[in-house]
């Protein structure tokens, strides 16, 4: 805790109820970390459901996982990792006060984010065309049966896999959309030159959020796409 009793001259970014700029920044950073803790539990509820159903219906999960497009999944993971790099470099640029570089990196991040969402859209559309969306029109006949499953796969249990797939990727995509919104906001202010080496907390905590959403995908990728990719037969 930093409590400097001396009233230092400060810029307009210091809000009245904080004693110092450090205190304000530490509060914002802790706030974001706590928010990310709630986000872990938010996704945690779905991971819990995933764990249990994967134990129960492994064959259906394996078959569902095989039907996902590994190429697009891998590319999307790479896209997100690139976006995380541009965010990390962006925070650095803000700390060093390089406004132009910061603006470019923020634009790149948004582009990567939109690319991710676009690819996700392509994948979802593919699922729609193959009738893999849970509901009345769901059709599991085209799915490859894993070689070791002697009883075949239960189409209704298969719907559980796809329900989780859409719930998890859907809520992740929603977080991406919010992230793109946040970064558009940051871009606007970076453009105006609001962030300086002394004041760049919004970039820093916005970056934390973006990295978190990246980490969620880092887990979703193997859990949804790579359950069972062993060669058949």
């Amino acid at each position: 805790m930093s409590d400097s009793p001396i009233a230092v001259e400060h810029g307009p970014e210091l809000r009245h109820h904080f004693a110092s700029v450090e205190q304000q920044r530490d509060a914002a950073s802790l706030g974001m970390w706590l928010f990310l803790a709630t986000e872990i539990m938010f996704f945690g509820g779905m991971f819990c459901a995933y764990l249990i159903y994967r134990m129960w219906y492994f064959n259906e999960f394996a078959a569902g996982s095989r039907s996902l497009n590994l190429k697009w999944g891998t590319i999307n993971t790479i896209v997100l990792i690139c976006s995380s790099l541009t965010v990390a470099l962006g925070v650095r640029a803000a700390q060093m006060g390089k406004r132009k570089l910061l603006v470019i990196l923020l634009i790149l991040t948004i582009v990567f984010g939109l690319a991710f969402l676009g690819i996700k859209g392509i994948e979802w559309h593919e699922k729609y065309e193959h009738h893999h969306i849970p509901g009345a029109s769901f059709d599991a006949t085209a799915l490859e049966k894993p070689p070791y499953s002697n009883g075949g796969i239960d189409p209704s249990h298969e719907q559980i896999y796809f329900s989780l797939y859409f719930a998890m990727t859907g809520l992740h995509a929603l977080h991406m959309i919010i992230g793109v919104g946040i970064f558009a906001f940051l871009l606007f202010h970076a453009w105006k030159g609001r962030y300086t080496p002394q004041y760049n907390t919004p970039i820093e905590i916005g970056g934390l959020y973006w990295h978190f959403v990246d980490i969620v995908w880092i887990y979703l990728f193997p859990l949804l796409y790579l359950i069972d990719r062993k060669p058949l037969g």
Partner: protein
Amino acid sequence: MSEHILSSKLYYGIWIALMVLTVVTAGVATIDLGPFNTIVALLIATSKALLVILFFMHVKYTSEKLTKMVIISSIFWLLLLLFLSLTDYGTRYAGHG
């Protein structure tokens, strides 16, 4: 918390490591390792997540213990949810594969 400006070389290094791990995890999944496929996939995912947390999110360089506590306790709580649920699902009844 003092600010650390890391060299951009480090960021590029982490980025390359993350890319390599992504390709590795996708590749390894197509080799039959028995039950180890899942374990390897999760280990790779965890090491990727750690790289992001420690370097991109600067946790390695923060002097603040509190941040680490927040991360550790939220993961601990997630594990509570999973393990205590498993006391039920792991022992419920036969019939589910």
